[in-house]
């Protein structure tokens, strides 16, 4: 291994990256775009649910009831509809996601101490949102029911209002939100997205960089020279790992500045762990580039083998616990699982090497494995 030759190849590669404007731009723009697009676009906060009401009662109580919704930040009151029939097109056209139908005699029945049924129509297109909407709905109705009940008890059993209130809720749940007290979904998403970005972009850059040389024919300079496989791979990949190392800082900055995610862990540890992850994913790109011969194939293959594991099998979107046992053990075969634990651990939980050493070790193992396989699979004397 001659370091001078590694440096020569690395310098050449770096110059090429710098001067190919389109490539250079995409090298930095794509990670940023993924961060911003998915960070903002994947906002899973359910707020401002637009809803309409059909009020057959038009009483003071029914108006109060509607106010409980329109005053909540979770709901956005879009107006009254005249009839159930009028709701159909509104829901169908996604202008509202929820409709409440208040029956006639709403006030009359409540004042007569009788239950009253309120119909809620929920747009179920996106099940997660429907689920959450149902939850909010139940919470508001539950609160109202407790007030009605304690009021009723106070009136019928002659209790003080305070006593009645205490009586109807004997157990209270005190929630303590750890790591993300304000439940800022942006924080989780942004810091978690590092897993995706740092998986996709180094793999892309590396695969394209090597395949480009194969496609143009300049790879023959390497084949025909005495440069060893190791020197070539190291020299060729170093600039891409370098670009990706810089991208770590960029996306890190975006996560904390643009999305306001806190960073509670050890910056040096996190950077080094990310670097190992990036080396590992560059190794994925290396393997792809050895298998394929054209840039298009490189892009598509890389897309399939990086996006899907990072999105689906990392725990970022789909909770690992929710998977079947087979899928779950599959997920642990891919590096993103481990890096997501490092990212959330470092950003939100404030963990360091003592808690995360295992994950780092696994990533380092992957990196070593991928590069070794790449080293052996790369041939300076191919069959075609």
């Amino acid at each position, binding site marked *: 291994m001659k370091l001078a030759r590694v440096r020569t*190849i690395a310098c050449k590669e770096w110059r090429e990256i710098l001067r190919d404007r389109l490539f250079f731009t995409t090298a930095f723009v794509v990670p940023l775009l993924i961060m911003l697009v998915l960070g903002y676009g994947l906002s899973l906060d359910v707020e401002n649910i637009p809803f309409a009401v059909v009020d057959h009662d038009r009483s003071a109580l029914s108006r109060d009831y509607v106010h409980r919704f329109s005053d909540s930040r979770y709901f956005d009151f879009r107006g009254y509809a005249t009839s159930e029939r009028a709701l159909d097109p509104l829901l169908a056209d996604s202008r509202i996601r929820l409709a409440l139908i208040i029956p006639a005699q709403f006030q009359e029945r409540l004042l007569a101490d009788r239950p009253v049924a309120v119909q809620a129509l929920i747009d179920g297109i996106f099940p997660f949102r429907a689920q959450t909407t149902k939850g909010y709905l139940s919470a508001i109705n539950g609160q109202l029911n407790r007030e009605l009940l304690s009021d009723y008890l106070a009136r019928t059993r002659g209790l003080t209002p305070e006593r009645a209130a205490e009586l109807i809720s004997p157990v209270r749940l005190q929630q303590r939100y750890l790591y993300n007290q304000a439940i800022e979904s942006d924080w989780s998403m942004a810091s978690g997205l590092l897993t995706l970005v740092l998986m996709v972009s180094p793999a892309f850059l590396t695969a394209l960089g090597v395949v480009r040389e194969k496609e*143009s*024919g300049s790879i*023959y300079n390497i084949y025909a*020279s*005495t440069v060893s496989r190791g020197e070539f791979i190291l020299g060729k990949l170093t600039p891409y790992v370098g670009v990706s190392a810089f991208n770590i800082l960029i996306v890190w900055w975006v996560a904390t500045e643009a999305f306001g995610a806190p960073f509670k862990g050890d910056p040096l540890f996190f950077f080094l762990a990310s670097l190992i992850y990036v080396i590992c994913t560059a190794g994925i790109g290396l393997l792809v580039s050895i298998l394929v011969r054209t840039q298009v194939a490189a892009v598509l293959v890389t897309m399939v083998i990086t996006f899907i594991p990072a999105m689906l099998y990392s725990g970022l979107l789909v909770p690992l616990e929710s998977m079947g046992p087979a899928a779950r053990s599959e997920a642990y075969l891919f590096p993103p699982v481990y890096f997501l634990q490092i990212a959330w651990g470092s950003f939100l939980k404030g963990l360091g090497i003592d808690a995360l050493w295992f994950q780092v070790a696994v990533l380092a193992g992957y990196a070593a494995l991928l590069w070794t396989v790449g080293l052996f699979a790369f041939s300076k004397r191919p069959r*075609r």
Partner: protein
Amino acid sequence: MGEAALVNEALAEPVLRVRGFCKRYRRRSAVEGVDLTCARGEIYGLIGPDGAGKSSLMKALAGVLAFEAGRIEVFGVNIDSERAAEKVKDRIGFMPQGLGLNLYPELTVEENVDFFAQLRQVPAPALAERKQRLLKITRLAAFRARPMKQLSGGMKQKLGLVCTLIHEPALLILDEPTTGVDPVSRRDFWAILTGLLRERGITALISTAYLDEASRFHRLSLLYQGRLLDQGTPEQILARTPGSLIEFEAMDAGRILSRLRETFAQVEGYGARMRVFVPGCEPAQAKIAVTRALDGQFKAPLRSAEPELEDAFIALLNERGLVADDTRLRLPTDPGPVSDHQGQAVIEARGLCRDFGDFRAVDQVSFRVRRGGIFGLLGANGAGKTTVIKLLTGILHPSDGSGRVADADMRGAGQTIKARIGYMSQAFSLYQDLSALENIRLYAGIYGLDRKTTAERTAWVIAMAGLGGFENTLAGQLPLGVRQRLALGCALVHRPRVLFLDEPTSGVDPIGRRRFWEILFHLSRRDGVTILLTTHYMSEAEHCDQLALMHAGRIVADASPQAMILALQAEAGQLLELEVERPLEALALLEHRFEGVGLFGRRIHLFASSPDAAEATIRTLMQGAGIRLTALRARTPAMEDVFVYRVLALERGQGAP
């Protein structure tokens, strides 16, 4: 016998030894059983058309391609694994096929050279010295800081050579270094290369598709479709293929050509000059045979000339039965568009200009081409030929100037022109994934032919291009020569009045090229199609009725080939051809004393205003250096002499303040 002795002596320890080399790609066989030995200091040529298996063999020799069967030894090392190949790679310089494709377009000239040097661990002082020297020889020193992607084809190729030589390899493997390069750059390239090889005692294995370059090799192998046809010195190969070349001038060229073709396989017409190769005959017998074939229809002095390697190559192919039966073309008759404006200009350019940013690619270009004429645009790479064609075909809009094509004004009637012209580009731009028939029908549809005409024209194209049996083959899988004729057929499907051809023959084997020219003649003479083309083959340029020489975007000469040759003789004097024993040394001696000295194969060409005085000078010079002069004769210059002389003069003029 200095050089020959050197070769014989060195044969004891060959640099390259190949035995029974076979290479296949999946099921397709590329090379079958090639044997070859190359001695130290030898310049060895691999000659053959596209698909002959040259590239596979060279890659295997360079240790960058695994192969299936056979044995390769380089510097005595058996190249049977990557590990074995690594042992010799530091002594090899390999330049793969494709103009500058192995260079890095974004890097500057100097950065490219440095990269190759550092890759090969050339120490800094040596690098500085070699870089200086090589860039100077190749005249690239002024362009050190220019990105490689902005170099012309000839410069890219020279830079490639510099990069390959920077670590001073003992063995140089160059794969088609001159394809697609203009004659001046090619000649320049050869001069640099032979100089360096001699100086450093480097062994070189070089492939080429230009048979006229064959005489530059000490020894060579002729390859065709993965098999070895013959090998030896150029003289040996010529000697093994006996035959005579008969030349004469005839006015009624078309009729005479078709008459001769009934008897002879190798007949060519260069304008009025006829060229017949009669295999297996002495010149005297050959003359009789030609006279008999002409059947008293024509009386003119027949000259015998020395056959070229190209004649031998084709004769070999004919002899081995490797040429398809229909080589002797039976062109289908085609009434063609009838025009009574015979003699009127069909293409007319008036002061055409085209700028790309600050760069003026075409500058005040004016010319006229008559109906049925074949007009050739010549010029070095980057002279602006392709841009002129693009302007006339409407792919590009002129920045200034005007013109008429096919009786319509270029500016106002783009669409009318487009319906009346045919175009074929350098790359034979067919749809490779469509079959031959599908390609033809596509163009028929684009030009809006009706069903009946489509059927007629399809049949015509298939007959013309000799596509019988290939109708349903994908265009990408056709042999290059057939693909080229298919592209021509597609350009002709709508019976255009004017045909534009941009380097239509590059990379095609000699038989394919000859056949292609026969078709062009037929079109121009019988159907009155006007043809404008560019080419780097100067022998082809002589087929044209009229030539224009372009330099730096301008037309610097515009005349018939004969007129150009006469003008050159008037200006530069008589062309003398020398045959000497050690041509390279002789060349060095003569260069300072005469104009237009150049190596053509093993012969030296030079111009002299007074031949007798020159002869005396030459004899004294040769005697002084102890070089035996085997022959010295006056010759009519060929187009290549004209081109090289003119372009070099222009380049010198440009270089002067």
